[in-house]
């Protein structure tokens, strides 16, 4: 009974105090144990339980457990475990704690039954995760982390504003289905959209994930965006605008991914593209589509983590993840290469791999609803996925021309993590029933029908054929050390430059202001020092006479007051 209600994610937060006590060696064991505990608890919990606490007139539903919660809770625990296993070698307590707090917040948010609780965990994910970027400990990582944090916090604040308005309009803070009909729900929608990396709000993702540490990126890739997908699926299923947003999301990252040089950024774009599929599924909103979204999120977390892990292992051994510097690593890292191929096959949705059994749910749901154009876009995007994640990543990292690098095979624990993840990808691909059982709705879908398999194989094989021909003609985009500008140029370049330009003109005024500011601060500090500083008037040790004087003053104050008010 206790296990049934006790919100297990609280255990994740226990790591913060424990980290003050234990060494990193003990912590990493706990870091593995706690997600397993969480996983087992979620498996054993009864459906439709809830746990409500009363905090000052607000009924906070700390736990709301239904089928949608369950599938996301399970995959988050799984991802936390795999990520922590992958990060077994990390001796940095900050990263360890940040990782576990981050996953705990994400699970807490999934369990949240009201917007206030959601807000707390929403901000929790933001604050905990930024340390995974800062842990790289370079100025660039610091700045990138700042940008990331700012955007995430803004998302949280918009959520808070939306919640307050929503409470004002409806008197309820329950986290349930909303209609996009008021400012409140639009604010909440936008807040979710920022975390979900909607087009034009997406740049934090490609900006920050390549900046995190080797292990940090793996963990980052699992939670934030999928939490947003969960939140959208919970609050806005069947909202039509999501279909178009999702379609756009699947489309544009393909081209960027194709020309990006940093493989981790390629994967970040591809993550964005995969999110598009899920968002379309939410927008369709039928049972099948939502099943597809949940299943795709589940599978996606695994294979995306797998891809990030393999690229991370390359980075770990070679010090770079740039396509232009890599190539031919299959000679010395064959196992990692194999795992990477498994991930690639999964993301490209080859039959027998996890992507196939989950993506086709969404595609079919779209087709049943007769969104012809959307369906074509998604098929197109599937070919795109193959091009950047399925071919580009493994090809440039492990095959391609020989870069001359001969790194050692990835360390054992990384191989373990990748192996487990690969196994899961394949198991889901072969026996989709296992996953379907945990989806929010009843599934009667059979992915392995002749026409399905053949159609998919046709699509993929001819795309590969095209690749072979283009490669043979030497027309592939070259790997060049470069970056590509995206929408983020607006806030990283245009606006700051504009302000710099403007400020240049008012230099004199600014100088005056800063001088005034400085002197003011100095005056305040000296005053503080005089009165309450270590030897200040109030804080120094008083003589008895002074003390008694104050007694007399207070007494006479009270007496005078009493006399004057009552006459």
């Amino acid at each position, binding site marked *: 009974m206790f296990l049934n209600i006790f919100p297990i994610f609280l255990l994740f937060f226990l790591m913060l105090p424990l980290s*003050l006590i234990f060494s990193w060696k003990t912590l990493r064991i706990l870091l593995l144990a706690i997600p397993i505990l969480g996983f087992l608890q979620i498996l054993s919990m009864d459906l439709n339980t809830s746990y409500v606490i009363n905090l*000052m007139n607000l009924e906070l539903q700390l736990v709301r457990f239904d089928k949608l919660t369950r599938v996301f809770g399970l995959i988050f625990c799984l991802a936390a475990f795999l990520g922590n296993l992958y990060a077994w070698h990390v001796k940095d307590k900050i990263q360890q704690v940040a990782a576990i707090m981050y996953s705990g917040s994400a699970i807490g948010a999934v369990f949240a039954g009201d917007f206030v609780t959601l807000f707390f965990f929403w901000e929790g994910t933001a604050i905990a995760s930024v340390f995974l970027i800062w842990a790289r400990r370079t100025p660039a990582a610091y700045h990138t982390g700042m940008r990331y944090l700012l955007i995430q916090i803004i998302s949280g604040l918009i959520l808070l504003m939306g919640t307050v308005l929503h409470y004002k309009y409806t008197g309820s803070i329950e986290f349930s289905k909303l209609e996009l009909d008021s400012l409140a729900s639009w604010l909440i929608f936008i807040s979710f959209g920022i975390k979900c990396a909607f087009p034009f709000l997406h740049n934090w993702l490609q900006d920050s994930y390549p900046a995190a540490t080797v292990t940090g990126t793996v963990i980052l890739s699992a939670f934030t965006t999928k939490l947003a997908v969960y939140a959208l699926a919970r609050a806005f299923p069947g909202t039509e605008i999501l279909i178009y947003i999702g379609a756009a999301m699947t489309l544009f990252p393909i081209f960027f991914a194709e020309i990006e040089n940093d493989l981790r950024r390629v994967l970040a774009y591809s993550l964005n593209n995969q999110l598009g599929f899920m968002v379309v599924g939410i927008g369709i909103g039928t049972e099948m589509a939502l099943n597809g979204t949940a299943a795709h999120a589940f599978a996606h977390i695994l294979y995306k983590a797998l891809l990030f892990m393999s690229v991370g292992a390359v980075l770990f051994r070679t010090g770079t993840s740039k396509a232009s510097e890599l190539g031919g690593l299959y000679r010395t890292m064959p196992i990692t290469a194999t795992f990477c191929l498994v991930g690639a096959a999964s993301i490209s949705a080859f039959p027998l791999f996890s992507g196939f059994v989950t993506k086709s749910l969404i595609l079919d749901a779209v087709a049943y609803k007769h969104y012809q154009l959307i369906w074509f876009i998604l098929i197109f995007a599937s070919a795109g996925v193959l091009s950047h994640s399925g071919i580009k990543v493994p090809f440039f990292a492990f095959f391609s021309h020989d870069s001359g690098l001969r790194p050692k095979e990835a360390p054992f624990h990384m191989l373990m993590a990748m192996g487990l993840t690969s196994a899961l990808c394949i198991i889901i691909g072969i026996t989709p029933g296992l996953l379907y059982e945990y989806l929010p709705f009843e599934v009667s879908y059979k992915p392995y029908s002749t026409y399905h398999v053949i159609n998919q194989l046709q699509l993929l094989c001819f795309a590969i054929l095209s690749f072979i021909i283009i490669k043979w003609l030497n027309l592939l985009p070259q790997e060049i050390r470069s970056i590509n500008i995206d929408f983020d140029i607006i806030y990283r370049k245009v606006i700051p430059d504009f302000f710099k330009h403007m400020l240049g003109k008012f230099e004199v005024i600014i100088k005056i202001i800063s001088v005034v500011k400085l002197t003011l601060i100095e005056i305040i500090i000296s005053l503080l020092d005089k009165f309450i500083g270590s030897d200040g008037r*109030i804080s120094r*040790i*008083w003589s008895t006479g002074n003390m008694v004087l104050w*007694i007399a003053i207070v*007494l006479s104050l*009270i007496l005078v007051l*009493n006399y004057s008010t*009552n006459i």
Partner: protein
Amino acid sequence: MNSPDIITSTKSFLDHLPVLQVLFPFAFAPLCVLFGHRKIALYITISACALAFVISLLLLRQVLIVGVVSYELGGWPPPVGIEYRVDFLNAFLLVLVSGMAFLTSIYLIGTMHAEIEEDKQTLFLTCFLLCISGLLGVLITGDAFNLFVFLEISSLSTYVMVAQGANKDKRALTAAFDYLVMGTIGATFFVIGIGFLYAATGTLNMYDIAERIREDLPNRTIQVAFAFILVGLGLKGALFPLHTWLPKAYSFSPTPTAVFLASTATKVAIYAIIRFLFSVFHSHPSMLESVLINIVMPLGILAMFAAGGIAFYQRDLKRMLAFSSVSQIGYILLGVSFMSTIGLTAAVVHLFNHGISKALLFVCTGIIFLSFGSSFYKNIKGLGRRMPWTSAAFLIGGLSLIGIPGTAGFISKWLLVQAAIEQGSWLIVAAILISSLIAILYVWQVTEIMYFAKSPSTETKEYLGPSSFLIVWILAFSTVFFGLNTSFTVEYSSKAANLLMNNFTMEK
């Protein structure tokens, strides 16, 4: 007058709880001296504290069942005889004081031999017990003069307990002396006030006084009595400009003393203030209002800022904590001065929560002090790595001082903010929040020194016996527990506050 032979029914143990509450520590104190040996005395002390704690819990239960428990001493019914009177407010605080006494006595097992000279230990324990009985007596009595007597019992024994710090630092003697002078002035003021009240009403029973001054129009004698009582108790409770004895007394005394005093002594004085304001003088609401709003509230806010700022400038853990106590007392008095149910609830909850958190902080400081021989910031760098358990617990206490959600301190601050919002005074809300920022500053400073400063290479042993460890974590756990589960604290406090405010609003 009832002649005693009317009483025929034999009374059960439960009926005697109010007097037993005070009697156990009081009667065990001479036993310590009689047996003389310090080990025996320690066990006597612990058992007395344990008994007192159990009785306070029983009393609380009794109050829940009966409402108000009244006990007349010597068979003389009030208002002639001395009455012990327990309602929600003091039942709740009795639990705090006796509980803290119990924890302190256990803490003494591991640290007494290091803190106090060997031949003074029996004396110390005797005074400790007397102090406990004094504080419990102040809480429980319904007689104004009896309250003074108990206040003096606790104060006199406190002076001795503070002076025991001379073992480590001779300045403890001047601290004790200053405290003596100030405490005596406070007590004198208080007794002058009682004298005036007696002159005006001819009775010493507090409820009787309240009855009798009701008929009177605003009366000079009562006004003067009120002023003297408020200042006298304000001195004992470290109301802001009268707090000057406190930092010295806390920082030079042996840590068990500091632990006990910080968590209870000022709290009891503030209890007495609340009691006088809302159970005795409530029949003069306009007088109360003008004094509370024009004097107590500004002083409370001033305390929050000035004492918090001073705490930030301190370079010694003990002094920092002492000043932070003054600032926290500001919060409590602010809560009182709202004169609303929720404000009073906040004040009472903060009495309790701050008592626990401060005890935790002082216990940790005591362990740090014994390990390093000093609690100056410059000497405790890198503490977090060398004494992980103690520092972690300290951090929890610090978070509670700031009022981070999930710790006890949050609950009381949240209530206080609510009280301020209820009054519509957004300036005060801002003041509470800003002063919390100051608390963040001074706690952060310590955290930084503990966890981020580079530690000197000298080896230090962590002075952490099983008993200290137990106490530290009991306190740390309760700090978190009462931050998460508010059913006990808030419920009782709001009951107490309702009770007090009923008196008050009826008058209005």
